[in-house]
């Protein structure tokens, strides 16, 4: 007899059940119950944001090289669980060949962003030749805590495509997993848990998008909200984002990869520093 897995949520590096005690069943195409998944509440969102904020300082101050290594470590851990993920993807209703492809793309995407961790800064920052005696440069800094609504389809690849560039750039995240296909997201949390990713950097909640997305959009300590196109929810979410001027990014191509997925979630900071200019000796001789 198989041992059925309990799918819990992931907050602050721990796997609690939702504080609400609620659940919703996930079934296969024949109607057999695959799992009872946590129906996370607004309170879970708030707890997760607290955990993400707490983790932000340490994660954003890690060296870029170290973040790259940790991202690569996630790829290693994910690849080691290939069978489990493909089984789950198939259980949730896609073909074996599609599952194989999605899994391979997911691993590749992690490796791709592992490489960006210590390179995007060089591509997107600048030294600015001001007309005064100052050294002036603009560099990127992570925005802070990012709320992410993972796409419904491609439940593993979609999640990875939005979460990994955010943490690559030093942000911490609170994710609402695919509502209809949540199994991989919880298993992916277990991968993160064993990958040197500090607790709180990625927090993953399962539940209803219609309940979790508005809570994330209205939270005053979330700096940006990222999702694929959410249709009718787009406008109310945009309105909720106004109160703390949350940055809002909607990706029509949320299963793609690119530098902009990293740099969109960065602020540009410009620093001015005087250059001593007393006159006399110059560098030419």
């Amino acid at each position, binding site marked *: 007899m198989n041992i059925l897995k309990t799918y819990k949520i992931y907050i602050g590096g721990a796997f609690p059940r939702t504080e609400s005690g609620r659940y919703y069943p996930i079934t296969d195409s024949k109607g057999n119950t695959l799992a009872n998944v946590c129906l996370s509440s607004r309170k879970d969102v708030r707890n997760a944001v607290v955990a993400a904020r707490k983790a932000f300082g340490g994660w954003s101050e890690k060296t870029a090289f170290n973040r790259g290594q940790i991202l690569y470590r996630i790829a290693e851990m994910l690849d080691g669980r290939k069978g489990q993920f493909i089984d789950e993807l198939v259980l949730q209703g896609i073909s074996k060949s599609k599952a194989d492809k999605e899994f391979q793309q997911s691993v590749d995407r992690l490796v791709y962003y592992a490489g960006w961790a210590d390179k995007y800064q060089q591509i997107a920052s600048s030294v600015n030749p*001001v007309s005064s005696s100052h050294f002036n440069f603009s560099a990127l800094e992570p925005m802070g805590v990012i709320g992410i609504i993972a796409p419904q389809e491609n439940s593993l690849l979609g999640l990875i495509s939005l979460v990994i560039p955010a943490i690559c750039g030093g942000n911490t995240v609170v994710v609402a997993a695919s509502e209809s296909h949540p199994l991989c997201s919880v298993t992916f949390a277990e991968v993160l848990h064993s990958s040197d990713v500090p607790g709180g950097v990625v927090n993953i909640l399962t539940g209803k998008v219609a309940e979790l997305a508005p809570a994330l959009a209205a939270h005053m300590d979330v700096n940006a909200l990222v999702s694929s196109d959410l249709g009718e929810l787009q406008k109310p979410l945009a309105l909720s984002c106004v109160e*703390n*001027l949350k940055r809002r990014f909607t990706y029509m191509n949320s299963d793609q990869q690119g530098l902009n997925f990293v740099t969109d979630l960065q602020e540009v900071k410009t620093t001015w520093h005087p250059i001593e200019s007393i006159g006399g000796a110059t560098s030419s001789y």
Partner: protein
Amino acid sequence: MAKNTSTKNTAEWNYAASPESTSHIRLEKKYQLFINNEWVSPSSKKYFPSTNPASEEVLAEIAWANDVDVDKAVKAARKAYQEVWSKLSGAERGKYIYRIARMMQERAREFAVIESLDCGKPIRESRDVDVPLACNHFFYYAGWADKLEYAMPHKKPEALGVAGQIIPWNFPLLMAAWKIAPALAAGNTVVLKPAETTSLTALKLAEIIKDSGLPPGVVNIVTGYGDTGAAIVNHPDIDKIAFTGSTNVGKIIQRAIAGTHKKSTLELGGKSANIIFDDAPIDQAVEGIVNGIFFNQGHVCCAGSRLFVQENIAERVIHKLKSRMESLYVGDPLDKNTDIGAINSKEQLETIEKYIRIGKEEGAEIYQSQCAIPSKGYFCRPTLFTGVSQSHVIAQEEIFGPVLTIQTFRTVDEVIQKANNTPYGLAAGVWTDKGSRIFNLTTKLRAGVVWANTYNKFDPVSPFGGYKESGFGREGGVHGLGAYLK
């Protein structure tokens, strides 16, 4: 806290008056809307006065655009975008922008005088800061027009279309330049609305735009109040809103465009920290404090309005600061000796006075310089508050006037926490002799611009903009192009 009443400086600072001449400026009595390179009378048939805040005299009557006028301007901009501007090569667009920059330089002094008349800022600032920076902004972005593919790695740069731009009254011409120059370089066309108290230099810029031969409709300038701005924000054929102004109005704009295709960049309010450590060069730091809060009467979104002084030097710094404040010359904006000009409007003066009242009621200790101020016009003495705590309204809300709040700190960690404890994140200043400490602070302060051992410096190549509720998007530099490209 320092109870230095002995700082009253008895020296006389009455220079002989040295006013800039106004003989060479050309001002019409009445200004129309600038649409399609034509001066068009408003369909509202309404006009409003633009006054000199230093004398309360009317400078000109300005057309008040309504929905119909704004629609006309947007249609002109759309037509110009589709038929002309989007078909020009970047190199050709650049030539027009270069030409505008050059013609502005030729008329720089006229612009400076009009800016000081209309806005109230000292001629020294409009002449040496606002106008040259505005010219340079056009010159800088002109050169980007044919190089956009270098600006955005891995993106094919494309213009957005018609940009609606709404600007404030504190740096009228400079803000017009910050908005128009990158928009044109990136291939967009523009409908710009200046602030109702300071329309004149934007309208003078329209003269240059017409003279430069820029194709009709590429830049349209519609004047008016908040309802004119709302008509731009709500117009369905606008692709992008660029706004500089208060956080409150920024949020109104965001709500208005929620769920539409319109993109936005917002440059909003601030309550920036200026931090003085005990190893800082004190005299330079005092100049930096003065420049940080009293530059442009404190009408600066990035003003260093929250001063944090390390506890062991607080008494000395405050003493020197008070002494320096006594030598500031408040008066005629056109006088070359003037350090602090007129408050931009009666309303703004009332707002500042309200906050000064609140500060006293909250129990903070006020100090104002003893200088004489003119009997006519809107003026405010340089003001500081000591004995301020984080919970005070005057330490939290943007006053937008020459009012400084002073707090003290002991440790680096403490001051970082205090400085970041605000919903704003526009700018910050750090004064210390220690390089490693500068970089510790400049990386940990959550603000878009950080000045080390200097303050309130601006340059066309230097990206400017905020974190958190100070807005999003950058103006200036290569990053400023991102606001106007897909």
